[in-house]
């Protein structure tokens, strides 16, 4: 599972939707791989618009990265050199970082979901469906 995806997935239990704690899931005991992918500055730049930055920071911290700025980078222009550096770092984090194995824990109900062979599993046991 790509880091980027952590911004779009949540606890599958409906009652957690109303909890402010539930999103993002907490990532624990994760095995990461870095995979080189084509750098598309424009994609990262537009992607940034739709990201929940606080969730990006939280998940990065779970995975041991505390270097992100507290506020979403603004006035990013893919043509400018200093923007390029920021976008390249984000590319490395969002697109090139993959969680191969690990746990995702809901901060509200504490249900644990597993990632195996890069595929996250959000199925619930019958008594929670």
């Amino acid at each position: 599972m790509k880091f980027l995806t952590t911004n779009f997935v949540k606890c599958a239990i409906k009652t957690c939707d109303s909890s402010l704690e539930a999103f993002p899931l907490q990532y624990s005991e994760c095995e990461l791989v870095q995979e080189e992918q084509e750098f598309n500055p424009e994609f990262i730049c537009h992607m940034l618009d739709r990201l929940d930055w606080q969730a990006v920071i939280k998940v990065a911290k779970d995975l041991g990265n505390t270097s992100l700025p507290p506020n979403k980078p603004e006035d990013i222009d893919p043509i400018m050199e200093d923007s390029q550096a920021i976008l390249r770092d984000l590319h490395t984090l969002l697109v090139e970082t993959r969680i191969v194995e690990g746990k995702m824990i809901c901060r509200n109900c504490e249900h644990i979901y597993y990632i195996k062979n890069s595929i996250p599993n959000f199925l619930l046991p019958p008594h929670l469906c």
Partner: protein
Amino acid sequence: MLPTPTVRSLDEKVYDPAEDSFLLLDCFEQDQGYLLEKFPPPHTIPLVVEIGAGSGIVTTFVKQNILKDGIYIATDLNPHACKAVLETAEENRVDDEKLESCQMDLTNGIKNKHVDVLIFNPPYVPADEVPAVPETDDDESWLDLALCGGPQGMDVTWKVLHGLETTLSKNGLAYILFCARNNPMDVKRDMEQLGWKVDKIIERKAGWEVLSILRFQKT
């Protein structure tokens, strides 16, 4: 005519691409102009989600040809299908960096109001009941989940339709496939009464079935 993705021989527990899958490909080819207008690249990056992606042929096709700049999540209950999606993407050289395969019931693990394009080829075959989710990966009955949809073949589809309000983003669209026995025109009328704009994009006779695809969006 856009190329049909290659699908390697699949695990027998995964639904093989058939007439319904191909109708979806033709539907997206036909509706590409509308989608690009709605989500103009490169400024808009749509989140495209396919429920019950099976072999992954539809997600692969849409990513490769229709909304190339989107990000994709393919969901399936079936663990064998989750693997097949990634294999099909790879087989067709679709870089998987913006395609995620998740084992999930419908869209239950996806953030509410974020899906821009929802694709669903449901278990639309009328059957006594919707089968239970098997308990082990090597159970032979995984395939039944891709087919059997309750008495009208609509049990799972109605779940998705009733959840659209929560699932879709403000500009979101849902493409859902029906067979004639699902009475799609009744569904269209009922959904319109609930405040949805519903358009029939494509219809085709496939053997003894008549299949159609409806597009839903909030008015």
